[in-house]
């Protein structure tokens, strides 16, 4: 069955101040929000700027805010909103390129700073710790595993958008970047590399800038638990400073 949906989309360009435009589209009741956005582009306004690729939460490119909450619209059914109008806005705390597209350059630089890569051959074991796969995305069972599955991250930027600290300090390294550092740290015993990683996460724009709102972990669609990684890094960095204090 097809339903008529109202989308209120935040539009902007370099020379056009952000403003809302309302569109009505017809989509299947089984559609996801990304399908509705595509309908706007296909039938209402070909100039609408938005990003997407995979349509199944693997690429992380389509992240936007739906009714104020950060989401991957490719996996959010329109049925979740029972026909109510949807307000679609770009991610917060990024500069806008146009409409729903934001500038992710700094975000990707921070992701790479720790030499983190999302694609690599399957690992059977991290340093000394077997990987505990939960075999599912159930938050309850996931909560018992050690934080060793950073490859869950699809680099969508949702955590940076949800983070209130990011809104106050644009130099903050950001939850995803810090979680990437933690992930890299788990994989190496090399003291030089560990020192480099911990120094990267240290400092006033690093882990210490976080004010524990936990919004990153709450918003992350992939259970990366960035806030937990930040707390774990703090522990490691504190240990490192204590060791240095006693000349070790």
């Amino acid at each position, binding site marked *: 069955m097809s339903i008529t949906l109202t989308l209120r989309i935040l539009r902007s360009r370099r020379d056009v101040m952000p403003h809302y435009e309302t569109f009505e589209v017809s989509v299947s009741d089984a559609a996801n929000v990304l399908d509705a956005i595509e309908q706007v582009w296909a039938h209402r306004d070909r100039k609408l700027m938005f990003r997407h690729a995979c349509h199944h939460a693997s690429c992380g490119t389509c992240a936007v805010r739906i009714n104020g909450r950060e989401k991957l619209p490719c996996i959010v059914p329109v049925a979740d909103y029972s026909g109510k109008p949807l307000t679609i806005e770009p991610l917060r705390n990024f500069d806008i390129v146009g409409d729903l597209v934001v500038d992710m350059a700094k975000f990707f630089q921070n992701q790479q700073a720790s030499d983190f890569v999302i694609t690599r051959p399957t690992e059977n074991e991290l340093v000394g710790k077997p990987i505990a796969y939960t075999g599912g995305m159930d938050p309850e069972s996931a909560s018992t595993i050690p934080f060793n599955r950073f490859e869950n991250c699809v680099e969508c930027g949702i955590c940076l958008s949800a983070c*209130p600290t990011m809104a106050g300090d644009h130099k903050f390294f950001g939850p995803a970047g810090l979680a990437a550092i933690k992930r890299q740290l788990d994989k190496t015993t090399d003291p030089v590399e560990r020192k480099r990683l911990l120094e990267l996460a240290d400092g006033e724009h690093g882990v210490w800038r976080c004010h524990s709102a936990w919004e990153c972990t709450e918003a992350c669609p992939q259970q990366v638990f960035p806030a937990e990684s930040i707390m774990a890094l703090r*522990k490691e960095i504190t240990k490192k400073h204590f060791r240095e204090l006693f000349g070790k």
Partner: protein
Amino acid sequence: MNLYRPDLKRFRFLRWFDFRSWRLGMIAYILNRVTAIGLVLYLYIHLAVLTMLAQGPSSWDPFIRIARAPWFLALDVLLLAGMLIHGLNGLRIALTGFGIGVRGQKPLFVALMIVAAVALIAGALKIFAG
């Protein structure tokens, strides 16, 4: 005010008050800041009031009469609420910051706020009982 405007970049922090995105952690975050500002303000008011003490009974005694008025006692209850919320939530932030109770930060917040509510009711009863 549309905070997506590039010229309002410096005011992005005002997005904290976009209640559409509030979850428990964000509520705790806002409460911590609001109570912190309240406590700092109180500290200055407290110092101002204490200077009256130095001026002797002529200025201090009338103040004590005001301090016993019900509306003033209500402000005492508000102060107690601020102290309890900020202090107990602060304890949670400090603990989780050391990696303690990280997984249970939400139930920890709820439990500490229940403690705050109970202590506030007990405190309010005592304040108004005189």
